[in-house]
């Protein structure tokens, strides 16, 4: 019985399930050497590219050299992004991304200076470096998997488990792509130097370079290079595998080379296998030996619409438009440009997007290559797709559930193991774009998982908040109790007498209330400064009036009650801190409001003609003489708020049958804000609050479903007369207020119609 290593040495191959043989178009681009194109005017470098959290290390206007790092990050996943050429950062702004959606992502735009001069590089000898130093070099060079997935290489090169076998992937199974083919032919020694570094890092027992049999030149070049390399004899070999799509997939390749299947949800390292692309091996070599960061890669530019198809060294961040122009594209505007191969790639919604680390091919198909839009027909359950599926899934079942949007059922058929290779779509006789369905289903499942996570977090936060509120409440109660006990303990006999006197007064007041029938006209006009007792007496009187009024309006048989509440609150604060007067006025207004509410809340009997002419004339003439007349302003705001609430209460009154309520609400909010001082911030805020309230009141009114014959005469005359020079805000506020008034008026008109 041969061991796995023996079988590897013999080049034993296993069969991978499924797969297809699409027509090969590699000869279109693999006959010419890898060339360089002229520099583009601008380079679009998305930041960040791999890894989420990072900080920008350049700003707009900075001059950068080729290889200057543009980002810094601390997370393990993060890879720095480097300037692809020398020039100036002219913008850092959202630009369309190289993605099927072309959604804008943050992009660093670099205007090339044409000199393409490198920043100082630090070449080194891997023999003198420790493992960690090599890994740091690989990471700071920003090397990601160049096969297409762009996974950070330094993570793969630092495996937690022991690696027996490293597979260098030179399969390149996509029908059009030849970038790895040309790289192996021209730079086989450099690739081997990269493989030697990988060998030093992971110490595998064997390294297998897998190449498809449609690239005999590349296989030959690599075999010769192995002979020239420093690698231990017998540790490395080239294995030629039969051409079949998708043999280049990581899991498929492992199955072909070792016969082992990577379990669902597992990574190859768990089998002791590591797969790296040949391009990645080349980049690792450049990073460690020459100190060059990953700023360019080989891109196959091909298709029948390209005048000079071939492979090019393309700086990362080159706009696809430039690539097409420089390679003599004859693609017409609006033609499909495909990034990646025809099997797994995606069409670009627009071409002003950058080449990224994972972009291995730009395909501009000609008219003969572009299929006419075929109609999707019904699935006939032929089972061709199940035969072709390399992951041994049941594509027609997945399709069935994905189309019905039963995504959890599709997940039950192992949708997440689909590698989106497109074999099923290719063989489908009904032209069903199966992979597109799977992509939609996968993104929906991802979204659902994300939503669930968010819901869980929201629940935790909600519960934490409830607990906190409960604790705060308990703490407050304990504190109040403690304070009460302290008060009781320190109370003298004299204080106790005072409490008894207060109790007696309250009793007397209650007795008086029962007999009182006072008109509700409460005009609070206290102007005195420190006459405290008089003010208290007045307050008591008002309280009595209020209670009496309530008793009246609460009586159920209050037919034809003509209550004409004319609250004419004229607040004219003459002195700066005439506090008592203002408080008294505020109390009076509060009472007026309560009276109105009580009226509105009374259960409307049949044929009640409530002629409530509420003429709320809030003539708040705020004339702040002094700069910080804060109290006056607050009082005005409170008054307006009350007026609003009263109106709302009226409007909410459930209109009974045959009630003729000609409510003439004349809301004349004449907010004449005359800010004398320059930055009279409070005054402006007060004005804003007033406007917001006026708006809400209007809304409440217009929402009233039974508001027949309501003549709403909203005259919001916001006369803001900015005296000072820089009160821009005041003017803007005035404009907004006018706009709101206009809207409210039109809404009212509509309502009437």
């Amino acid at each position, binding site marked *: 019985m041969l061991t796995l290593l023996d079988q590897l040495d013999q080049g034993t191959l296993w069969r991978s399930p499924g797969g297809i043989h699409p027509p090969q178009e590699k000869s279109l681009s693999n006959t010419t050497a890898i060339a360089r194109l002229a520099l583009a005017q601008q380079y679009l470098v998305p930041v960040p590219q791999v890894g989420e959290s990072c900080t920008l290390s350049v700003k707009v206007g900075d001059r950068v050299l080729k290889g200057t790092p543009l980002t810094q990050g601390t997370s393990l996943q993060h890879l720095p992004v480097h300037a692809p050429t020398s020039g100036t950062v002219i913008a850092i702004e959202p630009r369309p991304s190289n993605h099927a959606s072309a959604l804008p992502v943050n992009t660093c735009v670099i205007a090339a200076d044409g000199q393409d001069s490198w920043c100082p590089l630090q070449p080194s000898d891997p023999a003198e470096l420790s493992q960690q130093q090599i890994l740091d070099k690989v990471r700071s060079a920003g090397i990601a998997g160049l096969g297409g997935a762009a996974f950070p290489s330094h993570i793969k090169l630092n495996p937690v488990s022991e690696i027996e076998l490293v597979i260098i992937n030179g399969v390149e199974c996509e029908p059009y792509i030849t970038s790895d083919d040309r790289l192996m032919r021209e730079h086989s020694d450099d690739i081997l130097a990269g493989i030697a570094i990988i060998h030093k890092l992971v110490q595998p027992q064997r390294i297998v370079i897998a190449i498809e049999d449609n690239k005999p030149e590349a296989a030959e070049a690599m075999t010769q290079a192995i002979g020239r390399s420093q690698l231990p004899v017998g540790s490395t070999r080239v294995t030629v595998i039969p051409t079949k799509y998708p043999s280049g997939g990581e899991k498929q390749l492992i199955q072909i080379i070792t016969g082992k299947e990577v379990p669902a949800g597992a990574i190859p390292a768990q089998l002791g296998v590591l797969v790296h692309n040949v391009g990645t091996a080349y980049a690792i070599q450049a990073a460690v030996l020459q100190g060059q960061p990953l700023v360019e890669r080989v891109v196959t530019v091909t298709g029948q619409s390209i005048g000079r198809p071939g492979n090019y060294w393309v700086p990362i961040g080159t706009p696809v438009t430039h690539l097409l122009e420089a390679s003599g594209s004859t693609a017409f505007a609006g033609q499909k440009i495909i990034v990646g191969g025809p099997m797994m790639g995606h*069409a670009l919604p627009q071409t002003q997007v950058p080449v990224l680390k994972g972009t291995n091919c730009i395909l501009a198909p000609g008219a003969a290559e572009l299929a006419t839009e075929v109609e999707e027909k019904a699935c006939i359950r032929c089972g061709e797709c199940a035969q072709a599926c390399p992951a041994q899934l049941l594509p027609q079942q997945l399709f069935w559930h994905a189309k019905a949007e039963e995504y959890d059922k599709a997940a039950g058929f192992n949708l997440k193991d689909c590698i989106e290779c497109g074999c099923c779509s290719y063989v489908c006789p009904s032209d069903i774009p199966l992979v597109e369905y799977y992509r939609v289903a996968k993104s929906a499942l991802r979204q659902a998982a994300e939503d669930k996570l968010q819901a869980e977090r929201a629940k935790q936060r909600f519960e934490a*908040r409830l607990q906190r509120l409960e604790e705060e409440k308990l703490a407050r109660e304990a504190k109040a109790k403690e304070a009460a006990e302290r008060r009781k303990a320190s109370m003298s006999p004299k204080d106790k007498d005072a409490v008894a006197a207060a109790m007696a007064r309250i009793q007397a007041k209650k007795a008086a209330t029962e007999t009182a029938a006072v008109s509700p006209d409460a005009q609070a006009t206290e102007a005195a400064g420190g006459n405290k007792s008089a003010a208290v007496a007045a307050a008591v009187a008002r309280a009595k009036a209020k209670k009496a009024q309530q008793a009246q309006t609460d009586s159920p048989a209050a037919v034809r009650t003509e209550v004409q509440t004319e609250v004419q609150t004229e607040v004219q604060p003459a002195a700066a801190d005439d506090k008592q007067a203002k408080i008294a006025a505020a109390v009076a207004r509060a009472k007026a409001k309560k009276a109105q509410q009580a009226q509105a809340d009374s259960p409307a009997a049949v044929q009640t003609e409530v002629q409530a002419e509420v003429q709320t004339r809030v003539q708040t003439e705020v004339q702040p003489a002094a700069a910080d007349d804060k109290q006056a302003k607050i009082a005005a705001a409170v008054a307006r708020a009350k007026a609003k609430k009263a109106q709302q209460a009226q409007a909410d009154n459930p209109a009974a049958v045959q009630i003729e309520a000609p409510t003439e609400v004349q809301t004349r909010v004449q907010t004449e804000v005359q800010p004398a001082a320059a930055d009279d911030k409070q005054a402006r805020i007060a004005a804003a609050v007033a406007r917001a309230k006026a708006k809400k009141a209007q809304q409440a009114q217009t929402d009233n479903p039974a508001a027949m014959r309501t003549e709403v005469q909203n005259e919001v005359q916001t006369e803001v007369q900015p005296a000072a020079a820089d009160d821009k805000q005041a003017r803007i506020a005035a404009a907004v207020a006018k706009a709101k008034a206009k809207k409210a008026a039109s809404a009212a008109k509509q309502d009437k119609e």
Partner: protein
Amino acid sequence: MFIAVSLLTLLALVFGILLGFAAQKFKVEGNPIVDQIDTLLPQTQCGQCGYPGCRPYAEAIANGDKINKCPPGGTATMEKLAELMGVDPEPLNASAETQVKKVAYIREDECIGCTKCIQACPVDAIIGAGKLMHTVLTSDCTGCDLCVEPCPVDCIDMIPVTPNLKNWNWQLNAIPVTLLDEEKPC
């Protein structure tokens, strides 16, 4: 006769003790169905169902309330609830306009720092202090709408979440490439 009666009495006694012991030992705290319902609900804590939060609504459903009172969850949640509770799905009692995920946004230069929205937020997703500007942690906002009403200066907007590369939904945009000649050997 006596043996039969005594035997049955004995058996009844033994099983009675056994059941009594099991009822004490394996007592289930609370209603487990409430937890299951609660995990299905979207946890926006918006109160649109008429209950103060998602858990109270879950308890209400367990006690026989209707399953169609959750507009943020939409039809999908309603269907899952119908399946769990074994009742017929019924149309949502609210319009479907709240289906788009939204988050609150405070126009910061208009905020007067009144802290009213902070008190209204059920998931503590608004930060700020008295007389200082407030802002919303969009990653934690559930889009429940509860902060909009208390704002005295109307400076809170509910804006739909913009799609990014992570949450963008693949549309059906196939890449049609014809086969040139099928017989070509590979």
